[in-house]
């Protein structure tokens, strides 16, 4: 992939989103994580936060000190030297999350995917998922890659409230809702594992690069 594909877009007054590509892939995600590491080390003036995601990276900054054009030009400059070589070896930690497959959308998912409920569960527990990114709410980890038979678009109308501990799927991803929040994913199960605790030394259970497996609870 050439560096000319980098595209800057404002995300309001205090953030700029740099789009690295239009198709998600492990190589693109590696490049975005590499760019995030370069930015973190680059001492960019007025930079507040860096949020790496699947196709892009967003930098939050102090717009009282720097304007959009100036800021985005410097960020793009740093991002251009990011490498797309995936990190080799497993540096992440391995987690097993006990899951009860009792989610409100489990039967709907079985119907939409034309699989039996057992088959949905077997396919969800069979995979070892990697933590790609963190975001949405504190401790929410986007895990991939889901069995392709389970891939469904997000619900058209998001739910106003999804309970903490809900295990859900959407697109090629699966996740556990750490808190009760609105949500647009299909809920297939629940877990008692605490995904986020502000009083722990490291509040979020999962880090990017960790692996996760779901185990069917009796």
């Amino acid at each position: 992939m050439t560096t000319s594909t980098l595209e800057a877009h404002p995300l309001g007054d205090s953030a700029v989103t740099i789009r690295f590509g239009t198709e998600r892939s492990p190589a693109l995600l590696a490049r975005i994580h590499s760019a995030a590491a370069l930015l973190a080390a680059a001492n960019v003036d007025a930079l507040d936060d860096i949020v790496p995601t699947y196709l892009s990276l967003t930098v939050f900054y102090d717009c009282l000190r720097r304007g959009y054009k100036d800021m985005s030009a410097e960020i793009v400059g740093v991002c251009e030297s990011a490498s797309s070589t995936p990190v080799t070896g497993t540096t992440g930690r391995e987690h097993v999350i006990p899951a009860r497959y009792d989610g409100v959308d489990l039967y709907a998912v079985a119907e939409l995917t034309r699989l039996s409920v057992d088959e949905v569960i077997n396919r969800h527990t069979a995979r070892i998922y990697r933590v790609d990114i963190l975001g949405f709410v504190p401790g929410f980890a986007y895990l991939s890659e889901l069995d392709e038979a389970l891939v469904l678009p997000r619900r058209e109308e998001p739910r106003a409230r999804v309970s903490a501990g809900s295990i859900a799927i959407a697109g090629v991803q699966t996740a556990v809702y750490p808190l009760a929040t609105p949500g647009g994913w299909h809920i297939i199960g629940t877990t008692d594992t605490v995904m986020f605790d502000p009083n722990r030394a490291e509040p979020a259970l999962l880090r990017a690069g960790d692996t996760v497996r779901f185990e069917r609870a009796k």
Partner: protein
Amino acid sequence: MDSFALAAANALVGNALNAAVLEWALGGGTLRFDSECTVALAGARASGTLGGAAVAPLTTLRAAKGDELTVDHLDSGRFLYIALSGGIDVPIVLHSRSTYLPGRFGGLDGRMLRHGDNLRLGEAAGTAPPPGFHVPADLLPAYATGVVHISPGPQSDLFADDAWRTILEEFRVSSASDRTGYRLEGPALETSIPALPSDAGCPGAIQIPGDGKPIALMADAPTVGGYPKMAVVSEADLPILAQRQPGETVRFELISIEQSQRAARKRASDLHTIRHLAESSLRRA
């Protein structure tokens, strides 16, 4: 939700602009002061009394020991801010004193206040302006207009002209709206955008789900989400949107990111002006 009201109320009592204040939505209630205190109300307009006298908005007030501040109801707006000299002394969690209800942390045990709670205040800096000092009306956001400026968001290029015309029509704030987001009722936007991998969002981002009904993300916005973000509310105008009650109208006006950032700088300089006026009235007193 209304960062301008937070900062203005703090300036009125001589606090740092980001000191912890009370955010008050819905209904009435009473605060009793166990010690002398400087108080100010900003944001939503409230009917109420302090020590028996009607409270004036955006004005420095003085509470004596034993006084009661009673809020009868909110007349307009949605979130009232009550600043107390010294600020509310709650622990700092994840770099903030604010309450995050979905996560049940921050503030006072991560929950809403209840009848009978005691709030401790920090050390007052002794820089409160004299009672009667008030914020000049021309330094306030144009709350009453319901006009909110937006700039194009990260997925703005995925929306056709039709959708851009529709977003500038009139919307109403839905009753399904809270600190996380305001759903907007009105014409549905034409959208045929394929599912996107999640990317970063922010308070003020206007996302368009598959049903074409816009959702404006608010203070407790998700940090990352998958619905396309068509536009983002100008930070200077986010207080205007925050203060719209369910059923009230909102009309968006499109501006460039440069114009939006200029408005943000103007709002910040207006707050400095308020602070400066407060300090010079302290010197004169």
